[in-house]
């Protein structure tokens, strides 16, 4: 059995066991751990010298359409697979014990994971899309059954919104497929990429816009972002970790995988549009983030805001920007996962996430405070964390557009985006100060417990990976750079 197939099947089978009701937490922890090791093994056994897609397996299912269950991974997918398995593992680990219907809870988590892993490992357009959609329903159930706040309304909204986005995306994908000259028709992403870079496949602006907005909705591109903060605020922490940390990356991955190789002209043609929208993500959503009075909402908005940087790398359309974008994908995934995990812990301990009721928590739960501090710093893009490396590459990549000596759109927006760095410091530090520092808040009790060792280690692993890749981005860039080597 091909290793990538096992990567998909392990969580699926584990989920089935969970549904059957056999010690779900232990089993899913085991499954997620095994998957993590498997993805690490894949990463190490990937041959960097040869590059390209490896571990390829193909099973043709529908010859008429060329639908085939094909798996394969290049550097980019491997990095994302690592992200997916890592966050899944952490999410399962931090899942609170004693949830209602534990079997289904863990099964849903693992289903989301399966969806993400499948999407990242597929080199067939159909399964690439299908796997992602698969994760929609577990999200719906997780928010609806185990969520907090206005969970029902939010679950509806998110699901419908994302479904709409997926369908727009689907239209774009169909358009893409139809644009392939007759006789070359294929759903193989590798071939599509080749056709795209060779200039044979030029689907035109309509398809580009469909894909852009389809993926854009999934990524929460301004102004299609309003589903995200609420969803993450209402979802139980592990679900938010998986969705914000992994599943949302599907959209970005799609942009990198499909749109970049096939639509270089269109990206340039519509660069101004995307630049304006991403400025909306960074500046407008940034300001909105500042106004939030609850940690979960604030984190949700901040995660939306950071997507603006990813889009900046995307429109830059050069090795540097796209490399930065993919690095940021990874880093942002880990960061938000960490933040949401800790956010869940805070809410479970104090029963509230309102800034006005919190304060001085670091004095009582120093470990929580320390780890949250690390995560917050990673989120504001502090050097030493992989987020910083990604952002730097994105900024340089985007700024490199146009001749030196004059300011153009790219450079203006890059400069404005840099202001986002200030904004993120403003809200993140305010949150940290309001929750962990200052006078004791009304919701804080003396007996409020610090992190249990389980959660602590899960979070420490995430932060350690962030630091490791931040100090040594080359670890990932070795995998990522060749993917975009055909670009300037």
């Amino acid at each position, binding site marked *: 059995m091909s290793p990538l197939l096992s990567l998909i099947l392990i969580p699926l089978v584990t989920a089935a066991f969970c549904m059957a009701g056999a010690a779900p937490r232990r089993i899913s922890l085991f499954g997620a751990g095994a998957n993590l090791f498997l993805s690490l093994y894949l990463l190490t056994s990937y041959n960097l010298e040869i590059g390209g897609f490896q571990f390829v397996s193909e099973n043709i299912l529908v010859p008429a359409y060329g639908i085939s269950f094909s798996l394969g991974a290049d550097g980019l997918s491997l990095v994302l697979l690592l992200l997916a398995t890592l966050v899944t593992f952490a999410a399962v680990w931090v899942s609170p014990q004693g949830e209602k219907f534990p079997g289904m809870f863990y099964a849903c988590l693992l289903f989301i994971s399966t969806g993400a892993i499948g999407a990242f490992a597929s080199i067939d357009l159909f399964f690439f899309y299908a796997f992602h959609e698969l994760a929609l329903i577990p999200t719906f159930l997780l928010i609806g059954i185990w969520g907090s706040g206005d969970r029902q309304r939010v679950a509806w909204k998110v699901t419908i919104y994302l479904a709409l986005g997926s369908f727009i995306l689907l239209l774009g994908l169909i358009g893409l497929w139809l644009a392939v000259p007759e006789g070359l028709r294929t759903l193989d992403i590798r071939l599509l990429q080749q056709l795209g870079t060779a200039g044979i496949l030029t689907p035109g602006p309509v398809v580009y816009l469909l894909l852009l907005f389809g993926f854009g909705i999934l990524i929460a591109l301004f102004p299609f972002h309003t589903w995200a903060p609420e969803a993450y605020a209402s979802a139980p922490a592990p679900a938010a970790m998986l969705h914000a940390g992994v599943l949302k990356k599907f959209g970005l991955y799609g942009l990198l995988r499909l749109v970049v190789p096939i639509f270089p002209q269109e990206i340039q043609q519509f660069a101004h549009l995307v630049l304006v929208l991403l400025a909306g993500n960074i500046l407008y959503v940034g300001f909105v983030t500042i106004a939030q009075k609850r940690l979960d909402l604030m984190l949700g908005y901040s995660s939306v805001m950071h997507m603006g940087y990813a889009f900046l790398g995307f429109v830059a359309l050069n090795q540097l920007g796209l490399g930065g974008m993919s690095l940021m994908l990874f880093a942002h995934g880990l960061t938000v996962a960490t933040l949401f995990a800790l956010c869940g812990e805070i809410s479970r301990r104090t029963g509230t996430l309102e800034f006005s009721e919190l304060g001085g928590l670091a004095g009582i739960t120093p470990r929580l405070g320390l780890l949250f501090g690390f995560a917050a710093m990673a989120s504001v893009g502090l050097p030493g964390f992989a987020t910083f490396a990604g952002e730097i590459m994105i900024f340089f990549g985007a700024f490199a557009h146009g001749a030196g000596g004059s300011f153009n759109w790219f450079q203006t927006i890059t400069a404005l985006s840099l202001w986002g760095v*200030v904004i993120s410091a403003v809200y993140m530090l305010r949150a940290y100060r309001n929750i962990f520092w200052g006078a004791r808040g009304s919701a804080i009790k003396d007996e409020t417990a610090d992190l249990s060792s389980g959660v602590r280690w899960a979070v420490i692993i995430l932060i350690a990976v962030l630091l490791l890749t931040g100090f040594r981005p080359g670890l990932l860039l070795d995998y990522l750079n060749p993917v975009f080597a055909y670009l300037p």
Partner: protein
Amino acid sequence: MDPLLYPWIILFAPLCAAAFILFVLPRRGVAAGAVGVATAALVCFLSWKVFLIPGLAVTAQISWIEVPGVFSVPIGIILDNLSRVMLVVVTTVATLVFIYSAGYMRGDEGIPRYYASLSLFLFSMLGIVLADNFIMMFMFWELVGVSSYLLIGHYFRKDSAADAAKQAFTVNRVGDFGFMIGILMLWLATGSIMFSGIEENLSVLTLHPGYFTAACLLVFCGTIGKSAQMPLHVWLPNSMEGPTPVSALLHAATMVAAGVYLLARIFPVLLAAPDVVREVIMWIGAITCFAAGLMAIQQDDIKRILAYSTISQLGYMVVGIGVGATGDVAMFHLFTHAFFKCLLFLCAGSIIIALHHEQNIWKMGGLLTRMPVTALCMLAGGLALAGVPFFSGSFSKDNIIEWAWLNNRTGFWIIASAVLLTALYTFRLLLVVLLGKPRGDHAARAKESPLVMTLPLVILAVPAVIAGYPWFIGHFFDIAYAEAPAIAHKIVLGFLAAGAVLAAWLYLRGPARDPVRIPLLANRLYIDNFYNWLVIRVQGGLSVLGSWFDRWIIDGLVVTGSARTVWGAGYLLRLLQLGNLQAYTFFFGAGVLLVLYFLVFR
């Protein structure tokens, strides 16, 4: 050991110490202190060795970000005179402060955290000093900001400390915002992020002067933020919420000087840039220098007085960049200032500890007799600060002022008159704190601090006095002395004397409270209030507005609205389903009619 490794050890040892303390000794105060001090001492020792090995140049680089053929960011080490001197200054002062902290922080529950942050700071500062390219410098620049944030927020339970830390970080980020854009612009223009590469390429490139000016000034924004120049100076006085050794090390001697160091590092670039760049730098420095001096004379908190004096002195240094012939002019003042200002802060810390955390100078007095060592050291530092002849400060400061005479006469008058202000607040401080009768119980019962604290004072007092003499400084810098006419020097002396006399007239009698009341200055020219207004009203207002828009217009009107529209359409459509057979037949008939009309007659 291979001397080529020394710089790497210097750079990374503090980081290792920080990590070690954080993860291994999170509960052991004494051990943490010992590790911290030992590391600092090691680093200091190695720094001196590096300083003393002439011609040691490290060529090895660690590749950090590498996109083959497109972009690469190395972690590399630059070892020129500038960085060697800076290395020595930083590590020496730091070691003394590390030792001093062991005494100052005794009994604090957060000692491991303190030493970890302090070590982290040392790591970051050394990174700035050793950086051979802009991005590496920027990284450590940010890290310095973080460690400063952690240290200011050491007493995090205090709301004021928490707010101050947040403010310091945020304001620094504002500066970094410009800094980064400047880096990007210089990179785009020259194709390099290495200091050496930029300088080389500048000679062959012809840049649009406006672009070049903008780039340099944006880089200077970094200095404005880090070195607390107007208008981003507000964080520095507030940062006094941190422990006093922190103020001494970060907010007087080293970190805030990083901005000046940056300017000195890119001095060749500034020279190549249009003149307006250095003019602007000069003006910012001069205004900061004068305004901070004004604010300092009406402060009551001992550390705040020193903080404003720091801003003022940094202003001198920035002016030095603006008018000096070489970067060393400013670095000279940085060098002397590092010692005397650190000394002053440590003395203040000693007093504060002795007075049980009393910081108001109007609760002090008569400490000369009660804490003689501290007081004498403070006197030495104060005289150096005021620029009294034969003390280190006078040499470096006079040089800057004389360069200003040569290059910009208006600037000269501003910073020369700032000498008056310096003298005034320095002597005010010394007179009120050291002389007269104790104004409070704590002051009356104050005792000298322990050796672990006084020893660094004494050690620092020596360079505070002698660091300015050419026979001393000659070992460090080859300073370009200004060839200004003697009149300039006399004017400065005149201002100094005037300031001293004014201070003596006002404060020698030992008044119980400040005889001068200037609310405008006491309230720091209302700049803080302006920023408060900006943050709360403008930023807060905008963000609330944005949030409202997001919630009700984008989400409410557009998203939910369209969902509601669909729902409503469904609701209305289902109303067609009247349940009445006759209605159905009618609809059926109408449908037939429509279909036929459509088919046949259209």
